[in-house]
């Protein structure tokens, strides 16, 4: 009997990566602890986030057990389906509008957000593309890949959902870079990007421009977006070296921090756990990223390498953009702190990515020739 249980346990854990899983669980636990404080000790809130986490972990386990070559076969269909859904969303009356943005599709009982799906589908597609044409890569191939990237990003930016568009764009750029885009082109693009800044400025929505201006001078809009920045920097700054202690953040508990369970949860953490807490958190993020990079470096196919790299670096982007926004060095865009912020959707997407990482790592020996 114990032998059988051991067999089952082995089958169950065979494709999990211990180090990655441990770090993810640690980060999730931190999230629950901060959420408890941020939600004014609301157990139902914490409970529902715990449920979200269990779902996300189940998804992670599932993906970890799917061998990468199956994923490769899904890449093109996934991308095409995602793109179709994005186009549907863009059509008035079909896409569902809320808070001034058209991001959702209604499925009767529930509604889905195709842009969330594209966070995985885009790097999957690009990785597959480079893998497929590995032998015949020319400059034109990179151009084609860039088109594959820009179409969904433009559709998402138009919704408008700048946060998601930036994340997906970044993930695509990582694939392009890792796939060996020549330095000369990178330099050219950098110069062109600088030159086109005035144009980009002119096509931004008024509120997006406002957010950037607010970053430069928060007092310009003390009741609007500036309020978030002013209050969250006060929270961070007043936290000091060791923080005010769990459940003792005054900024948090006197309602000065807006959206403090979701996008601004880092302000709560930072106020209560201070600079030392921040150091630990950043190290924890670094640990996950480092593990991801090791998996990436050891991956065996180009597809696996590119995908693993994109997933790892996108995770880094999430964390950096969120913490940068809360500490006032990046404009306020709707990006949650991965694995910590309240909310199920991004949690599932991120764990899905980690599932893929684990799959790439643990199916390695099996594919060896």
């Amino acid at each position, binding site marked *: 009997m114990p032998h059988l249980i051991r067999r089952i346990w082995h089958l169950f854990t065979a494709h999990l990566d211990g180090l990655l899983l441990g770090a993810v669980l640690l980060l999730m636990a931190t999230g629950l602890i901060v959420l408890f404080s941020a939600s004014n000790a609301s157990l139902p809130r914490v409970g529902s986030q715990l449920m979200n986490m269990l779902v996300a972990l189940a998804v992670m386990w599932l993906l970890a057990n799917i061998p990468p070559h199956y994923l490769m076969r899904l890449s093109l269909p996934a991308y095409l389906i995602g793109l179709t859904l994005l186009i549907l969303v863009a059509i008035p009356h079909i896409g569902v509008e809320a808070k001034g943005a058209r991001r959702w599709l209604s499925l009767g009982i529930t509604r889905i957000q195709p842009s969330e799906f594209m966070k995985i589908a885009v790097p999957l597609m690009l990785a597959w593309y480079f893998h497929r044409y590995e032998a015949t890569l020319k400059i034109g191939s990179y151009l084609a890949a860039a088109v594959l990237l820009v179409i969904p990003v433009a559709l998402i930016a138009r919704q408008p959902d700048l946060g998601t568009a930036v994340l997906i764009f970044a993930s695509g750029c990582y694939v392009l870079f890792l796939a*060996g885009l020549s330095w000369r082109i990178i330099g050219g693009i950098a110069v062109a990007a600088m030159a086109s800044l005035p144009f980009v400025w002119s096509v931004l929505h008024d509120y997006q421009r406002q957010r950037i201006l607010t970053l430069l001078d928060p007092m310009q809009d003390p009741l609007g977006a500036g309020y978030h920045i002013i209050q969250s920097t006060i929270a961070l*700054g*007043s936290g000091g070296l060791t923080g005010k202690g769990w459940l003792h953040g005054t900024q948090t508990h006197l309602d000065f921090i807006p959206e403090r369970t979701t996008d601004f949860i880092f302000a709560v953490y930072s106020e209560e756990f201070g600079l030392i807490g921040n150091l630990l958190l950043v190290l924890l993020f670094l640990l996950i990223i480092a593990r991801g*990079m090791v998996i990436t470096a050891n991956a065996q196919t180009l597809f696996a390498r590119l995908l693993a790299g994109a997933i790892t670096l996108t995770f880094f982007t999430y964390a950096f953009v969120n913490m940068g926004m809360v500490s006032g060095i990046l404009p306020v865009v709707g990006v949650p702190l991965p694995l910590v912020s309240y909310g199920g959707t991004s949690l599932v997407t991120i764990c899905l990515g980690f599932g893929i990482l684990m799959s790439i790592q643990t199916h390695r020996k099996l594919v060896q020739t």
Partner: protein
Amino acid sequence: MSEFSINSGIEFRNAELEIRHFRARLAIMAGLVLLLFALLFLRFFYLQSVMHAHYNTLAEANRISIVPIAPNRGVIVDRKGVVLAHNYSAYTLEITPSRVTNLEAVIDELGELVDITPKDRRRFKKLLEESRRFDSLPIRTRLSDDEIARFAANRYRFPGVDVKARLFRQYPQGDLFSHVVGHIGRINQRELDQLEANELLANYRGTDYIGKTGLELSYERSLHGTTGVEQVEVDSGGRAVRTLARTAPVSGNNLVLNLDAGLQEVVYRAFGDRRGALVAIEPETGGVLAFVSKPGFDPNLFVDGIDPQNWAELNNSPDRPMVNRALAGTYSPGSTFKPFMALAALTYGKRTPQQAISDPGYFMFGNHQFRDDKVGGHGMVDMHKSIVVSCDTYYYVLANDLGIDAISRFMGQLGFGIRSGIDVPGEAEGVLPSQEWKKKRFRKPEQQRWYAGETISIGIGQGYNSYTPLQIAAATATIASDGVMFRPHIVNYVEDVRTRERTFIEPKPVRKLDVKPEHLAVIKQALIGVNKEGTGRRAFAGAPYVSAGKTGTAQVIGIKPGEKYVESRVQERFRDHALFIAYAPADRPTIALAVIVENSGFGARAAAPIAREVFDYYLLGKEVKPVKDDDDATPD
């Protein structure tokens, strides 16, 4: 064999090289990650170590709090300055639920100090469900000085409970203007999302109320004003110690309406307990003089969240007081449709004024008999007489000759079945029957077809015809103004409180009707005839001015062929609606109206007298009770 091994050797080396390239790029990214995280950490270090003292003071003294100052909401007055909506200041007792652990117990304890009725509790509970937990919610409004003193002495016992001075919205006219002015109410989550989407959220910090219906909703942006900001230093207990900087709020704009409160009241009283609607319009401008939907309700009930009991009463009443009948109620126009039909006939050259038919009392279409109200018929009937005596047969034949396409084209021009664009939200479209409409309305192909027989009853304003009282009034005003059509509007001008600058809601004509003046003259002459010698004569007997009108009766239930409609036998709710359209003085009209009295039978008897009272008040400045005689009313 050897070739193969060489080849694979190159491939192997290529792969090696590729992996080395890849790892180099990965290492660059790793460096970037470290660099950016270091940068981030540097920022943390700057905030939390270098600037810690500064931010700590900010958080500590804190709280240099940025307090929004809600602006005064604009006042709404009628054309003569009578106040319809204004603000007053009062003290409220408010609880912030997130700062209170046992809400019920705290309310019980508060109940020992100030009077808290079960009604207050129910209202509070409802508010609680609709609001965010960190909002400060009123448990009692309008505290007396005594109550304030008693609470102040015990304040230390109640963290999270506060007395606040607040501006309250009041509607001094009660239910008189409930359907036009509308009311405000506490901002709910949906409205919050909407404000956020429109980038208005910042301006609503500090504002608890928002327009929910009527002008309060449609002119929300004008009425609200601009929120001010005050930077105050607060002590650890949350009380303001001193003000550091202040930007004053800008009060909302005032609305001056075209409505006449006196006239509105006359209409309201004339209706008595009957249900219905009246819309009176100034033909030369499209300004709305009276806008009544009966019954109304007291908008003051809604301002602070209506308690469930009152809500249920209003919501479940069979009289449906919440429905804005003038704007969203649709009715068959009945015989009030006939003058417009006659004008269509003249315009399209289907009739001359002199052309007469012989009315046997019915019109045969196929083997279906369309009956006239008058048994035996009206004899020889020309256009003038057809309107004055309201002859059905004349219009059965006419409708058949015009055809549905011509009818719907002409009536569409007059605004029938099209939203008028009035500045009150919630307007219904009504139904202007046409082939196209029927195709859209029905699913089955056999139902989608338009049958020629259906056109017949359209001619007397029955059948699929269904319009709002506002549309009927606007069409009447268009006749009165010789074919110039305006967008009806309630608000005359918006006034900036500071600069006294007035922005007029301009009396722009929407269009000029394509009709000949001599044709209009025929119709107008006949409408005068109605009030002089026709179906409207009793109601207007002895009036010192010349008026024009047309009675109408709208069927609520269908009557089978051969069956006679006997009012006393029909249940009250299924009795016919009484209608009347009119304008006066006939030569230079200053007021045009449409009135509908639900389930009251003939228009001549129930609706026309209300029009008489309105005209007497508006033109003569007096309130006359019209002669009432019920027994001998002429059916229209």
